Every structure is written in structure tokens, then in C-alpha cells.
């Protein structure tokens, strides 16, 4: 008997965690998908009625704005963070003095809550006393920088704050990648008389492919989940011009009492993340087993 327990002990010990994950992750996802196909409003109902919640969702202007915002935000946020991160990593990799100090100042925003970041940038970007006033006081009285209160431009303030918070992290990823590039190949290229620019674009940057993939996965994932930053910086406004799927879902779930709509929007967010994550996890786990 004791031997039997000893044999199954690892499975017995891991079982509660696994059960918890099955219930709280997969069971809950199942619940959400199920409820997204019901007529649930303030209280959940469980009679399936097909995809009417999705039809309704895609006919809601506010949701379409949220999706468009997410698309623009993902593209700009990921692209700018990658460019800034790679650029800074390459500069920092030139045997720079005080590298430790510089790296620390680039990366500390990642330790902050998005609510703190949002609060800080909201103050800096406010048209009354923020950057606009600073530049006007410098002798440019006509300078306009009211993005935060401009429905057309408010989304870009979220990009600014998001890039500020995350680009240092991307820099750290790239720096680690640069440090593990095979130095022999670079030396050989230099002996062949290939210039530094060609060495970077032709050899080093292509070899950073795995880092690009990791960074893009993390950034896209951050972007789709972006809820805190939007709430703290713009609360989805002016109007609902900076609404995102995450804020839409929250509004439907907790203030509008539209559980069906909330579940349908959450399901679409989940699907979007899966498109990026599943191939990534699949290849990661396969590599590890090989």
C-alpha cells in the first residue's frame, strides 16, 4: 500500500493544482463561451439561442470603435516599442560606460502599475498645465497639444504611455539576445571587410528572430489585455473614442448588466489571444521535448 502511494505520489500532489486550473481556467472559459450564446442580461441564463449576441455585438458602433482602436493600438504600440527597444539595445551594446545605470532607468517603468503610469501621463499630457503649457511658456504661445481631450487623438496618448512603460523591457530582451550572438561570425564578417551597418542588418538582426517573436507575443498580449492603462488615462473617453474590447467587456459586465454581450466580447478577446499564443506555446513545448 505504501509503495502504491509512493508510486502515485507525484500525480496525487499535482492533481489539486491541475483540478484548480481545469475548473478556474477551462471550466470558466467554457462558461463564458456558453453564456455568450444565450440571452443573458442582468442574470445568466443557460438556454442556448445561437449567435445572436455576436450579431448584436458586431452591429454595435461602440464595439466597432473598440476593435478599430485595438487594431491601431496593437500596431503602433508593438511597432514603436520594438523599434525603440532594438535601437536602444544596439546603442547600449557598444561597450557603454555606466551601462548598468542607463539600463536601470530604461527599465524601471515596467515595475509600475499601469494605474500609476496612467495617472502620471494624464497629468503630463493635460492641456491646461501639462506639456502644452510648458512649450507655450517657452515662447510658442500658439502651440497646441490637447490629444488627451481630442476624440481623434486621445488613443495616441495611450500609445505614448504604453510605449514609455514597455519599451525598456523590450530593450532588455534585445540586449540579452545581442549578447548571445555568435561573436566568431561577426569577427569573420569584419575580417571580410563588411561594414558595421551591413553586419547589423545582414547578420545580427536576422539572428534575433526568436527575440522578436517573444517580444511581439508579450507586447500583443499586453495590448489586448490593456484595461488598466485606458481606465487610468482616458477612462475610454472622450465619449467612447478610446474604448477597447477590455473596457467594453467590463462596462457590459459590471455597469450595463449585459452578461451576454460581456461574454461574447470576452470570447472574441480570447480567440484573438489564442491566434497568437497557441502556435507560440506549441512550438515552445515541442522544442523543449525534442
Amino acid at each position: 500500500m505504501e509503495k502504491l502511494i509512493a508510486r502515485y505520489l507525484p500525480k496525487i500532489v499535482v492533481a489539486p493544482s491541475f483540478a484548480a486550473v481545469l475548473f478556474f481556467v477551462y471550466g470558466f472559459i467554457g462558461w463564458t463561451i456558453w453564456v455568450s450564446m444565450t440571452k443573458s442580461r442582468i442574470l445568466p441564463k443557460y438556454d442556448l439561442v445561437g449567435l445572436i449576441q455576436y450579431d448584436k455585438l458586431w452591429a454595435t458602433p461602440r464595439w466597432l470603435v473598440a476593435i478599430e482602436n485595438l487594431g491601431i493600438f496593437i500596431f503602433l504600440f508593438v511597432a514603436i516599442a520594438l523599434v525603440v527597444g532594438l535601437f536602444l539595445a544596439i546603442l547600449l551594446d557598444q561597450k557603454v560606460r555606466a551601462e548598468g545605470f542607463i539600463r536601470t532607468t530604461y527599465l524601471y517603468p515596467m515595475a509600475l502599475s499601469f494605474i500609476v503610469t496612467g495617472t502620471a501621463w494624464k497629468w503630463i499630457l493635460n492641456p491646461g498645465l501639462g506639456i502644452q503649457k510648458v512649450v507655450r511658456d517657452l515662447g510658442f504661445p500658439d502651440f497646441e497639444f490637447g490629444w488627451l481631450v481630442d476624440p481623434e487623438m486621445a488613443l495616441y496618448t495611450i500609445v505614448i504611455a504604453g510605449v514609455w512603460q514597455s519599451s525598456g523591457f523590450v530593450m532588455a530582451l534585445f540586449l540579452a539576445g545581442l549578447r548571445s550572438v555568435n561573436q566568431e561570425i561577426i569577427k569573420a564578417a569584419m575580417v571580410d571587410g563588411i561594414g558595421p551597418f551591413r553586419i547589423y542588418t545582414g547578420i545580427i538582426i536576422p539572428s534575433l528572430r526568436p527575440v522578436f517573436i517573444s517580444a511581439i507575443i508579450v507586447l500583443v498580449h499586453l495590448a489586448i489585455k490593456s484595461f488598466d492603462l485606458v481606465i487610468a488615462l482616458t477612462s475610454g473617453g472622450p465619449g467612447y473614442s478610446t474604448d477597447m474590447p477590455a473596457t467594453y467587456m467590463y462596462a457590459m459586465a459590471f455597469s450595463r448588466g449585459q452578461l451576454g454581450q460581456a461574454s461574447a466580447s470576452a470570447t472574441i478577446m480570447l480567440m484573438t489571444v489564442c491566434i497568437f499564443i497557441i502556435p507560440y506555446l506549441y512550438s515552445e513545448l515541442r522544442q523543449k521535448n525534442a
Partner: protein
Amino acid sequence: MPDQTANVARGGGKRWSPILLRGLLFLILGLFVLYYTLPLFVMVVTSLKSLPEIRQGALLGLPKEIVLDAWKNAWSEACAGVTCVGLKPYFWNSVVLVVPAVIISTAIGAINGYILSMWQFKGSNIIFGLMLFGCFIPFQAVLLPMAITLGKIGIAGNVAGLVLVHVVYGIGFTTLFFRNYYVSVPVELVKAAKIDGAGFWTIFGPILLPMSAPVIVVTVIWQFTSIWNDFLFGVSFSQGDNQPITVALNNIVNSTTGVKEYNVDMASAMIAAIPTLLVYIVAGKYFIRGLAAGSVKG
């Protein structure tokens, strides 16, 4: 810069003087140092100014006179709606929430990671994959059923409920950290221990745990920052007196009653930021390692 000429071949063209190039490099790096530190600087100076001084403009100026009222106010008097108790009670809510949530999720992650690396069985990789996927889901997909479940267990709206939520959704990451760390431990060590008759717990406790300090530090820091900084779970699953600090901060800043006190807002944001900033300053090295481990394979 005498010791840096060695790198000229890599950075310098023929017509550019190395010194000029070096200067440009430091100029750009310095500008980015400004870009990253300016918001923190603005927060600190604003929190130390009086309201009349703030209204005069000079966002970037040092305070003419350092006033600590805003900090005192933010800590114990600031209003969110009609409750005027400052951040103090919510700060302690976050502490009471973070401590057990970090300890429990780290302990579970250590045991899971140990099993999924040293005691692999048929299907253990699938279990690991399923747990890992849980780290990446948008939590919006579990928000509603979680709210209902917390209500049914009777811990809705309080700190115990939030501890449960953070433990459950933290398991994936903590397991990942420990598994990746233990995978790199030589198999011979465990095999030898098994031959010597060491059992499941003997290998884990006296043998593995003492050499796990680095991964424990990484995991604790990671869990601490992500739970302290969490807003979504806090705002969804806690009410009134039980809210964590991020939610209270957001309520204070977005409170529409009374005069807008920017200095109090900034002092509040600083109070919410200080614990994670301290961790970052003290243990930044491990913090970076955790971030990297969370995204790149270990």
C-alpha cells in the same frame, strides 16, 4: 574615453571621428534617460508643490518651497467620492492581500515545477502546457464566472476572495519559473538520491530547496509586482473598504467632487508605486531575470 576606442571598428565609419560618434551615442542614450525619468521627476516635484504653485504652470520646475501636505493628505485624508480616508487603509489591504497570495502561489509553483521536471509521467507535459496557457488568457474570459463563484463560496468582495483569485491565476507562471529552473538541475543528482533511497519529499526538501534560492527570489518578485499592481481583479472582485491600493488610487484621481488637487494625485500615485519601485531598486537583477523567464524560454 581612453578605454573605449577598442570598439571603433564596430561603431565608426571612415569619415566620422570616433570621438564625435561616441559623443552622439551618449547624447542619444542621455536623451532617452531623460525620456524615461521625466515622468517620475514630474510626479515627485508636483507632489511636493502647493496647489497655487502648480496652477502657475512650470510643470518641470523644482518646487519653490517643499510642501509635504499633499503626501500627508494622500496617505490619510484624500477623498474618493464621499469617503475621505486617504490611501492608508487600502495600502494595508494590498499588503494583507499580497503576502499570503505570494507565499501560497510560490509554494504551489515550487512543488508543481518539481513534479513536472523531476517526476515526469505520461501526460505531464500536457498538464504543463494546459497550466501555461492559463497564464496567457485574457482574464476577461473568466471574470464573470469568477464573480459568481466567489459569491457562491461566500468570499465575494473581500480580501480572501482576491487571494484565491491571485493564487489560482498565478499558478501557471510560478510553475513555469520552477519547472524551467529544475529542468536545468543535473538529472544524475536526483537519480543518485533515488538510488540512496531518498523519497519524493526528501529530494524536494533537503536536497532541492536549498539550491532554489535564485528561482524563489525571481518568483516572489514577479508575483509581488504583478499582484500589487493588479487592477482588473481588484476592481472586479472587491468592494468598499476591501479594495486594493490600485483601485483606491484610481478612485482618488478620478474623483470628481471638490477641487482637483494634482499634488495629492501625484503623491497618491507615488505611494502606490513605492513598494514595487523599492523591490526593483533592491533586486532589479532578479526582476529582469523574471521578466525574461516569463517571455523567453528558460
